[in-house]
């Protein structure tokens, strides 16, 4: 692995979370907990040299495809795409407001977005279809699907998982944001997914179980993709914390889609940006 500036990735993740906070607080809508839990995963993919992409040419045909199946976390992806130049960062404060390009969920009008998502349980199927097409075309790009663990209760997820293994879609990587919450409940109280790794392995996937907030583990798990020889699709279970980055939100069901205001907002800003407020 080439030299990685982990401190820079941490700073970037903090900046992304700060943008998420401001977008959601300003719009008074959005799913903050899930956006925070998957931020480090997206930062690793985009800033850790994993994804092949070109913000000046969003439809470059050899780009890797990232599908944010958990579309409710779109704010995290919007902040990153704006930072990378896919669109003007001035768009971010317009999130969910009249005339904005940025709605509550990703859609393909937004440069850098590969699939309209938000209706849960469909991203892996879409990703498997794209990966199948890439294989048939002999194309070298990879397909990444970032899915929530809550949506892994949908039958359609497992139908696509079976399909991907059967068709040896080794160019498909599923990342499960394993924050152990689903809407306003805990996954293991509602419908346990564990042992998730064993289940995915039994379905014919290679599985890596990592800490989803460790850039070292994230980059290690993605690092060998270009040289990987297995015919199996790859699943990365990224164990995360919903609301990660703001102390009072971490692991709390309330922050699935609550909106911080007043003191809560001030504390969150301070935790994500020690220099706040600036003069």
């Amino acid at each position, binding site marked *: 692995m080439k030299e990685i500036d982990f401190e820079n990735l941490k700073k970037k993740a903090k900046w992304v979370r700060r943008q998420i906070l401001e977008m959601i607080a300003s719009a008074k809508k959005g799913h903050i907990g899930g956006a925070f839990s998957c931020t480090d995963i997206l930062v690793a993919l985009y800033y850790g040299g994993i994804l092949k992409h070109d913000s000046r040419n969003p439809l470059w045909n050899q780009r890797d495809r990232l599908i944010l199946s958990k579309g409710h976390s779109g704010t995290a992806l919007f902040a990153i795409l704006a930072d990378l130049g896919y669109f003007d960062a001035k768009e971010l404060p317009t999130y*969910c407001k009249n005339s904005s390009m940025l709605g*509550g969920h990703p859609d393909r009008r937004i440069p850098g977005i590969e699939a309209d998502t938000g209706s849960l349980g469909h991203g892996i199927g879409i990703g498997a279809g794209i990966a199948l097409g890439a294989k048939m075309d002999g194309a070298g790009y990879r397909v990444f699907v970032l899915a929530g663990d809550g949506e892994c209760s*949908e039958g359609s997820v497992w139908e696509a998982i079976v399909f991907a293994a059967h068709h040896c879609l080794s160019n498909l990587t599923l990342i499960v944001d394993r924050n152990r919450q689903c809407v306003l409940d805990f*996954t293991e109280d*509602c419908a346990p997914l564990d042992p998730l790794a064993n289940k995915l392995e039994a379905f014919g996937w290679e599985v890596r179980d990592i800490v989803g907030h460790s850039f070292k583990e994230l980059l290690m798990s993605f690092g060998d993709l270009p040289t990987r020889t297995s015919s199996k699709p790859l699943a990365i279970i990224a164990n995360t914390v919903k609301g990660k980055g703001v102390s009072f939100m971490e692991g709390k069901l309330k922050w699935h889609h609550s909106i911080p205001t007043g003191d809560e907002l001030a504390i969150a800003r301070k935790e994500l940006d020690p220099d706040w407020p600036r003069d």
Partner: protein
Amino acid sequence: MTNSTNENSLMKIFSGNTATYRESLFHAMDDALSRNPRVVIMGQGVADHKGLFGTTLDLANKYGSDRVFETPLAEEAMAGIALGAALNGLYPINTHMRVDFALCCMNQIVNLIAKYKYMFGGRFECPMLIRMVIGRSWGQGSQHSQSLQSFFAHVPGLTVVMPSCADSILTDYPYIIHSYSGPVISIEHRLLYDVKFNIEQTTEHSSNKPLSSHLVRKGTDITIVATSIMALEALRAAQYLSKNAGIECEIIDLNCISHPDKEMVMNSVNKTGRLIIADTGWQAYGVCAEICRIICEKSPTSLKAPVITLGTQPTTCPTAKTLEDYFYPNLQTLTDAVARTVTGKASHGILLPDEHSMADVYKKFKGPF
């Protein structure tokens, strides 16, 4: 659909009082769990701290988490589980926070739940209530605000209701849960949840029968057949037109979408000679088309003027408020339709109410209605 009124303690409690749509739903759920130990409520959000918009709040603590429980994002499996539970003596109430989410379980609902009784010689009954909520306020968009009553009502074996008021909930739900043997889909409207209603005084001659249509206003000039929140809009339009134009509207709240009171509709149209149908969904192949079919087949000479139908525009629901206000019918479009039909003129000269957004009105309006 039925001539029998069941013993309804809920209506007796609320008779002559007021209740919000949300309170009525909560008490209907509480009553169901209290009266029948084999009732279970299952769905996303039913046992969380918000209790499915307050309609199941704290019921998991009161009756136990084995009777009120959260389900995962696995709608089709949950519908199948409800079917299995119903076949084996439980009474499942399966909830969907949005009608749209129920599309994930159409196979279970349409191919199994609706047909089980018929496919197996009537040996099996599938009594259950499936509650679905129409999302409505600006920004709900294409996958959170659909009004799919026609999808379900199209299928024999399913009974579909759309309560427009607290009365309908307090009348229908206890009957459905405690006395009805088939699967029922109830489509509730999110904008109505905070509206307060006067509950009709219950008497031996109470006009509201369960699973029936309701004549909610008598009039002589025109019949408005309406569903869900459009029945309330029709009442507002009728009050406006009576006061400002001397037009008297007769209003039928269809309520039971799958089995409307055809005789009530025909009698009204025979009397007024004019018909407007106002639905919360798309007009094509929907409730509007079905009511037109009834009139065309049963009473084709009764109309003195062409029918006008009102529903949502034939597109997916936009998220921008300005576009959404064009998407939905409102008091102004309904009033204009009545004025055009009664006068027979597009330029009818009747001043229309200056109101373009139903969502704005109902978010502020708390009742009583």
